[in-house]
């Protein structure tokens, strides 16, 4: 039998609402008309626009018993018929971005980056002497990264802010992305530490962290090939959506995170979960790349403004 595979990599609590996009197919199929499973899947595919399988799992039961949804309930709409998303944005619109440099005075470089309600602080310490001699690399710098979420960052209070599997994975992802763009061969036998702290999580924390880390590295004056910017995009209700927030992210649709080097026009980070047909995937990835370029423009403005401030303070 085939299995439903909704996206369970949520940052917060699970509730039945997250799976309503899938439940629709079953509500319709099992309650309104006596459709067999294949018909229901086909109907749901037409409505939701992507392929999924059905099989023996909790969500294939009739809706009323599991979730208390009534048959007359309309399916969860992430894009209204007028083309507005749940928070009033258009499908191609990003959330509001805000960035600030130099917030942590003691760090060599630091930045705060906000994408909508997602707020992230990054601090960079380095280049400095390697603390653990055994990890020293003789011809390049060692780049280390740690990602942690504050206790209060998600809706439900998190018990263990560090060391869980998701944090470890994101730390690795950020480290690899930034390592690709730092000119590590210019700083042999030294260490660069990137610390990212999430203050508020509302979807897209990965992207916000990478953007914040880029700004912090630039503030620290560490030589880089190019800035790295990142943005996420998804596909719900047959529409590619740019910059998903938490509700859209937990809807169970695909979530594509892209990180690019804008001037060199190269992709350094590409992650996706759930399934997408290939042509739609190209669309969604192109949309995310456009989002990255918009972020890159904003970051360049912020850095330029910062440099002007520094010039002014030096009396130039």
């Amino acid at each position: 039998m085939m299995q439903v595979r909704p996206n369970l990599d949520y940052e917060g609590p699970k509730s039945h609402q997250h799976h309503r996009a899938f439940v629709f197919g079953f509500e319709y199929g099992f309650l309104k008309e006596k459709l067999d499973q294949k018909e229901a899947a086909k109907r749901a595919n037409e409505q939701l626009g992507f392929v999924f399988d059905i099989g023996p799992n909790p969500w294939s039961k009739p809706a009323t018993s599991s979730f208390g949804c009534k048959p007359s309930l309309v399916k969860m709409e992430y894009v209204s018929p007028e083309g507005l998303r749940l928070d009033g944005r258009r499908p191609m619109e990003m959330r509001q971005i805000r960035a600030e440099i130099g917030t942590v005075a003691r760090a060599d470089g630091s930045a705060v980056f906000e994408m909508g309600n997602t707020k992230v602080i990054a601090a960079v310490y380095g280049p400095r002497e390697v603390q653990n001699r055994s990890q020293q690399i003789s011809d390049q710098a060692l780049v280390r990264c740690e990602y942690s979420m504050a206790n209060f960052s998600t809706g439900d209070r998190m018990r263990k802010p560090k060391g869980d599997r998701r944090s470890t994975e994101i730390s690795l992802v950020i480290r690899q992305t930034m390592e690709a763009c730092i000119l590590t061969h210019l700083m042999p036998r030294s260490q660069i530490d990137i610390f990212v702290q999430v203050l508020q999580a509302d979807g897209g924390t990965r992207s916000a962290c990478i953007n914040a880390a880029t700004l912090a590295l630039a503030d620290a004056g560490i030589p880089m090939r190019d800035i790295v910017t990142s943005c996420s995009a998804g596909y719900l209700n047959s529409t590619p959506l740019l910059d998903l927030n938490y509700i859209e992210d937990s809807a169970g649709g695909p979530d594509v995170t892209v990180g690019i080097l804008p001037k060199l026009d190269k992709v350094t980070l590409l992650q996706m979960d759930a399934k997408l047909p290939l042509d739609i995937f190209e669309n969604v990835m192109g949309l995310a790349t456009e989002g990255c370029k918009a972020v890159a423009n904003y970051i360049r403005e912020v850095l330029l403004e910062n440099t002007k401030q520094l010039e002014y303070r030096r009396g130039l």
Partner: protein
Amino acid sequence: MVGLSVGEKHFIQGGIAQDLRSDGRKRLTYRPIYVETGVIPQAHGSARIRLGATDVIASVKAELGKPSALQPDKGKIAIYVDCSPTAAPMFEGRGGEELSTELSVALQRCLLGGKSGAGSGIDPSSLVIVEGKVCWDLYIDGLVISSDGNLLDALGAAIKAALSNTGIPKVNVASETSGDEQPEVNISDEEFLQFDTSGIPVIVTLTKVGRHYIVDATSEEESQINSAISISINRKGHICGLTKRGGAGLDPSIILDMISVAKHVSEQLINKLDSEIAAAEANEEES
């Protein structure tokens, strides 16, 4: 932090002896305090305090829970502090755990009173909804973003500000149940009860360097401490908690002297903090 040379150490100690510290302050002067409230929208109350380069955020979250069997008429309060690695590279991984635990325990001692809940700055009986069955669990989380000395004072002030910003939702007990059944409670989205924070103490840390005491030490000054005492004092001038840190022994008369100095300093600090919190809340309402 980079180590200090002998010359720098003498400079710091000499300045303190002459009542002129490295940044121009007197011994008993605090750095300018900036308060921002409501920084974490999904928490019931939050505040961010900047004391020079020290930057801390405190958030208050209330969840429904069951009171303990030993004290059925009291809610539960827990304070946790986390040191973010952005504050110092040594806080990476488990490195900040020792300092976090020390700060959490010191704050609990200063703000929450004894094991029975007596003498607590926050009254736990105001948190109970249905005696023996339903109560509010208050989780107070502190996060240190940037550290430049005097973390305990900053965290104490941030918690005080966050609590005055906290709105606990009003609860209607839906039905009368008897025995062991859990009563149904409706949490209202509209009405909020504000916390009464006049009883919450502030924490004043006095650091003894050489023969003099200073208030609000920066991390360079903290590296020179012989010993330090953190005292939490409330508005009435009562001492709510005391912690001594540092290896050097202190003569009892010196301790009493430090306590009276702390009392004197705390009056100004409480007034300053209250006005800053009021200004911050007014700002928050406008925006």
